[in-house]
């Protein structure tokens, strides 16, 4: 770690009634770079599951995110359906779009969806999802790798949603992915990071940013991901389906920052037995 961790100062605590506990300066001095794009927030937010666009906008602001995912679906052709409002909201909030290929079960569908997203949103970035199982929504490794290779060859910046397998992560980077997004647990499960050892191994195995994706249930999961060495965390359901999505967005923002600081600070090793923090020397003989 070359960058020195920024201390959370007393001044950075939010005003009463404001659910912020974030040091803005830390994110300014510790940016994340993916494929040449600099992000000052290490939190990516999914836009799915928010009960209203107004709440989504508020959560975006509370999270501090600069990159949000969107899906591509059929236009609602009913004449009364309002059009373009999601795009408008995201533009107003000044965030970049990361289109996903959610719902695709084959490399072919995912590649075509990514190309359509590139047309629709004028971005060559894609969060590549190729799902292999309806119940767990776990990635289909061979199809994922195939789609990643094709999209990289077509000039896309590919961020694949992948399993927590370090070997697959390395294969994805070998074909040119700009980052890897390993799961902590199945999408929307809120079970946290089920195999922290593998996530740590992935961080060691690849030279591109590692974004923990899926499975985050609450703020401590996001902090743990950062402590394990992840470069960023993506959350969706954990925020959008929380009882108070805006407050949870703020919690995630603080957690990502806390985990990042803790990682840089270097935690103490785990021990079975106690190690006294108070010296024995000078103890009174009573």
């Amino acid at each position, binding site marked *: 770690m070359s960058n020195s961790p920024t201390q959370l100062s007393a001044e950075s605590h939010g005003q009463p009634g404001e659910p912020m506990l974030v040091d803005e300066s830390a994110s300014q001095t510790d940016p994340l770079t993916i494929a040449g794009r600099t992000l000052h927030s290490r939190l990516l937010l999914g836009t799915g599951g928010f009960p209203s666009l107004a709440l989504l906008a508020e959560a975006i602001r509370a999270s501090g995110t600069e990159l949000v995912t969107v*899906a591509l679906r059929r236009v609602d*052709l009913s004449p009364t359906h309002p059009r*373009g409002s999601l795009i408008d909201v995201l533009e107003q909030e000044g965030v970049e*779009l990361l289109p996903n290929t959610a719902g695709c079960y084959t490399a072919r569908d995912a590649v075509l969806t990514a190309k359509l997203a590139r047309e*629709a*949103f004028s971005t060559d970035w894609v969060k590549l999802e190729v799902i292999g199982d309806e119940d767990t929504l776990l990635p289909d490794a061979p199809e994922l790798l195939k789609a990643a290779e094709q999209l990289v060859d077509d000039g896309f910046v590919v961020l694949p949603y992948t399993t927590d397998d370090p070997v697959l992560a390395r294969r994805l980077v070998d074909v040119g992915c700009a980052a890897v997004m390993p799961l902590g647990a199945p999408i929307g499960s809120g079970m946290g990071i089920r195999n922290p050892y593998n996530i740590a191994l992935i961080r060691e195995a690849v030279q591109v940013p590692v974004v923990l994706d899926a499975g985050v249930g609450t703020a401590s999961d996001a902090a743990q991901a950062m402590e394990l060495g992840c470069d960023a965390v993506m959350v969706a359901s954990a925020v959008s389906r929380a009882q108070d999505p805006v407050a949870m967005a703020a919690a995630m923002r603080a957690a990502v920052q806390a985990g990042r600081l803790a990682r840089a600070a270097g935690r103490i090793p785990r021990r079975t037995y106690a190690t006294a923090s108070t010296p024995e020397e000078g103890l009174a003989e009573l």
Partner: protein
Amino acid sequence: MIYLNGNRHDDGAGQTVAAVLQLLGLPTDARGVAVAVAGEVVPKAGWATFEIPEGARVEVLTAMQGG
């Protein structure tokens, strides 16, 4: 006959993508919209000239909330 987002439309074949979008009330300068015909992307630059073949599946897609 074409299939538009899964629904059968008796007219539409032989028309351009732009004409079909207009029929739907979608502005042809629509932001955040992409079109596939028969499993291939039709870039925006081609909407005014690309004629939809008989029986083609036309998908008109846009941004939706998603993780």
